[in-house]
């Protein structure tokens, strides 16, 4: 009997935590989603983009500090000269940039980056054999590219040497791209992870395993990606010379975001990214200082913030800092506009009026969300802060009136509606709340839980009545949002609500071909107001992103589009040593 007790004590004893050995320049970050491998052309969500952004680089990147976001050259020398017809772009890339060392290169030494590498990377994005998730970026945009893709899909292996009219290498460090029709957002496309540059030798050498052996030009190197829950990046010894920016948004100086101005980046030697999907281990781990930065989800925000949405004293005393910034996104309940029950706009307007956004904001986002009046989020040209959408107010009587006008007094005769969503607890709560609201006007709503793939499947095959989702901007241009109600983008395209309105389409086509400027912004505003009244979706919120950083983390600013953020972060060694004792 005695031996039994000692036995159990032994387990408890060896189990307790070992002291964390820490060295100065190391960062511990969290990725809330599983990472499916590091291949630029497949980096379709923000978090795989962040990982790719540590190892690869693109022609351009968004300035880490300046808001509103503006492009700045990264591997490119400068912004490209654009020909008068807006179709031909000429690029010049920086010289002396080296790929990471890798067995793919002769004697394992990383060779110098050349213009032809970019052409190869873009072709790879278009290669039908790879069915890249980012193909929509170039689809129908570059002259001769679609024809090349068509031809290659018939052949056994894709022929990368074939000439494409749209891509012309004009020198070792210069190349030209010719578009089919003007596409002002094209430069943004060249800042997205999809179009980061890869080396042909690496792709051929590693073959199908390429996604686990990233070989880029980025600030950090990762020789082998293990499918495990921990990814360890080390500093790239022969990274090109790049400095921390010396100017930023007004107020950055005060926040200490410019203290490392002019220093050579990357500022840390090692970054360990922990892949943790469940909310509780993430949050508890952060409070034990296992991680340096955490993006708060709804429940964690509720725990960390006071009613006035300021950081709670118990966390402030540990030196933690709250970083909050509006996201350029929109959450919504989308109708399937091809479903006959939603054909009548009054039904859509009634349901939008019956949704109590203020209460939802309080319950689910602790009041931190900005109620979305229409489709364009704040921070983008075309957003008007004064515009008020009459159908976004909370007016149950008006809703009932509209519903009975549409032929369903008190909701009688209105079929039961199932709202599809991803099987996350918080999503289920949001729909249950939505159902409670709709019940007030007599419409019965059910929750439809799906795995993420099932949800995508149902949306792209129009097998749903409604679904709820949020859309984050791919690039800082309202076109990215307006395209969601543009008829040709109908499912399986990005217009999941299959909303078709010839007028809206005409206004959209006129606006998108214009370069950014007064005229285009005016067209965006008109289109935004038109869409507001049409209520293709029940607009939800533009959400605010809250993150907590440990005291010793420097230069952390929420960067919506910039996936190369890691190189700008730094660690204050003294503060870390002294504060460690507190945990």
């Amino acid at each position: 009997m005695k031996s039994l007790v000692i036995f159990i004590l032994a387990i408890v004893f060896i189990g307790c935590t070992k002291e964390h050995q820490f060295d100065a320049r190391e960062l511990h970050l969290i990725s809330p989603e599983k990472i499916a491998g590091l291949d630029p052309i497949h980096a379709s969500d923000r978090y795989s983009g962040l990982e790719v952004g540590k190892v690869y680089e693109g022609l351009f990147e968004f300035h880490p500090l300046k808001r509103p976001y503006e492009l700045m050259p990264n591997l490119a020398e400068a912004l490209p000269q654009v020909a008068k017809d807006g179709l031909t772009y000429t690029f010049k890339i920086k010289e002396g940039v080296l790929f990471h060392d890798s067995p793919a290169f002769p004697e394992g030494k990383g060779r110098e980056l050349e213009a032809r590498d970019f052409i190869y990377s873009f072709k790879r994005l278009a290669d039908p054999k790879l069915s890249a998730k980012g193909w929509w970026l170039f689809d129908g945009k570059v002259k001769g590219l679609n024809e090349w893709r068509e031809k290659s899909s018939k052949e056994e292996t894709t022929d990368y040497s074939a000439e494409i009219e749209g891509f012309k290498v004009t020198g070792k460090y210069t190349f030209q791209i010719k578009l089919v029709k003007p596409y002002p957002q094209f430069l943004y496309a060249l800042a997205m992870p999809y179009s980061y540059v890869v080396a042909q030798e690496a792709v051929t050498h590693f073959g199908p395993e390429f996604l686990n052996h990233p070989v880029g030009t980025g600030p950090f190197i990762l020789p082998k990606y293990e499918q495990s829950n921990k990814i360890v990046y080390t500093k790239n010894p022969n990274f090109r010379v790049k400095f921390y920016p010396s100017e930023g948004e007004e107020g950055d100086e005060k926040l200490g975001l410019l203290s490392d101005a002019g220093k050579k980046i990357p500022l840390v030697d090692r970054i360990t990214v922990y892949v943790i999907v469940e909310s509780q281990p993430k949050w508890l781990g952060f409070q034990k200082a296992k991680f340096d930065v955490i993006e708060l989800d709804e429940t964690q925000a509720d725990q960390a913030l006071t009613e006035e949405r300021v950081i709670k004293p118990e966390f402030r005393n540990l030196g933690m800092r709250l970083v909050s910034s509006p996201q350029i996104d929109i959450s919504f309940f989308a109708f399937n506009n091809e479903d006959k029950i939603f054909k009548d706009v009054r039904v859509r307007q009634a349901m939008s009026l019956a949704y109590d956004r203020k209460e939802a904001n309080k319950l689910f986002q602790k009041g931190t969300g900005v109620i979305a009046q229409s489709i364009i989020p704040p921070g983008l040209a075309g957003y008007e802060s004064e515009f008020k959408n009459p159908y976004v107010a909370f007016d149950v009587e008006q809703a009932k009136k509209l519903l009975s006008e549409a032929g369903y007094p008190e909701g009688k005769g209105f079929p039961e509606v199932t709202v599809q969503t991803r099987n996350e607890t918080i999503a289920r709560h949001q729909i249950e709340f939505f159902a409670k609201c709709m019940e007030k006007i007599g419409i019965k709503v059910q929750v439809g839980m799906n795995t993420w793939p099932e949800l995508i499947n149902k949306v792209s095959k129009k097998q749903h009545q409604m679904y709820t989702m949020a859309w984050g901007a791919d690039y800082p241009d309202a076109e990215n949002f307006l395209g969601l109600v543009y008829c040709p983008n109908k499912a399986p395209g990005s217009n999941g609500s299959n909303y078709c309105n010839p007028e809206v389409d005409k206004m959209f086509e006129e606006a998108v071909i214009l370069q950014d400027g007064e005229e285009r912004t005016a067209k965006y505003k008109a289109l935004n107001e038109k869409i507001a009244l049409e209520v293709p979706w029940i607009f939800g919120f533009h959400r605010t992103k809250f993150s907590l950083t440990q005291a010793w983390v420097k230069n952390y600013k929420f960067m919506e589009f910039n996936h190369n953020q890691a190189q700008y972060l730094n660690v204050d060694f003294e503060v870390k040593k002294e504060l460690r004792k507190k945990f």
Partner: protein
Amino acid sequence: MTNYIIRRLLYLIPVLLGVSFLIFLLFNVVAGDPTAVLLGKNATARQMEELREQLGLNKPLFMQYLDVVKSAFTFDFGRSWATKQEITYMLKQGAYPSLTLTIPAFVISTVLSLFISLFVAYYRGKGIDLFIRFLCIAGMSVSALAYILGFQWLFAYKLGWFEISGFEYGFPEFLPYIALPAIIWIILSLGPDVRFFRTVILDEIYQDYVRTARAKGLGEMTILLKHVLRNAMIPIITYTVIQIPFLILGALLLENFFGIPGIGGMTLNALNNSDFPVIKAMAILSSVVYIIFSLVSDILYTIADPRVKLK
């Protein structure tokens, strides 16, 4: 003996065919088309067609079934749709963390259950017997999810006795990570194990040879540990060996919540992302291992029980 082993291995074939047909039915025929899933939200119909072609989903159903059967016998499961990695490679990767959790937990829980059931059998009918059995049953009456949430919050976070999540490779390093999930596994498996072992031991205690042993002047404890245990080991071995195949599957929930990059977490991830090749691979792997281990358990049975001759 070899005749028996050959016959049992031949028996593997129809079962494998059965398993692959069941999997094929569940995944290929009924579960529908994954292309939209893989291409993300901006897919075009054209793209989906190309992918379907590439994944061989346009092949006639019978051909697809043959692929499943081929992978069942050759263990070549191809690549995962989500991570594009070789599945066999992923299994090898996941095996280490999974087994570092499941094997010690399994061994400790079996040994502990044996101790407890012997103790309980010795004091059968008395208060202590009822009390301990009650504790074991109570232990298994709480849902695994409740244990995980409660224990992680209390022991790992509040009291800080264990690591909250994550995993380190290497012997002493991984202990603080797997200790808490292992304890939860043990608590959950004590109930059924103790119940089964106690019944088996009690069956033996009332046999005639125990009366003979008493007549020979042996003490109650020696009878229990020598005569009864030796006989009780026969059903205990078969019961324990049959559970081994499920260790390989790992503990889905435990690994997911405690951040252990094992096969369990991988399977759960595959199930959540409809990553059919991985799910199929797991189903086939566990059924093959199940059959092999049932053969192992039969052979152990004959070694343990001299009365049984392998015909």
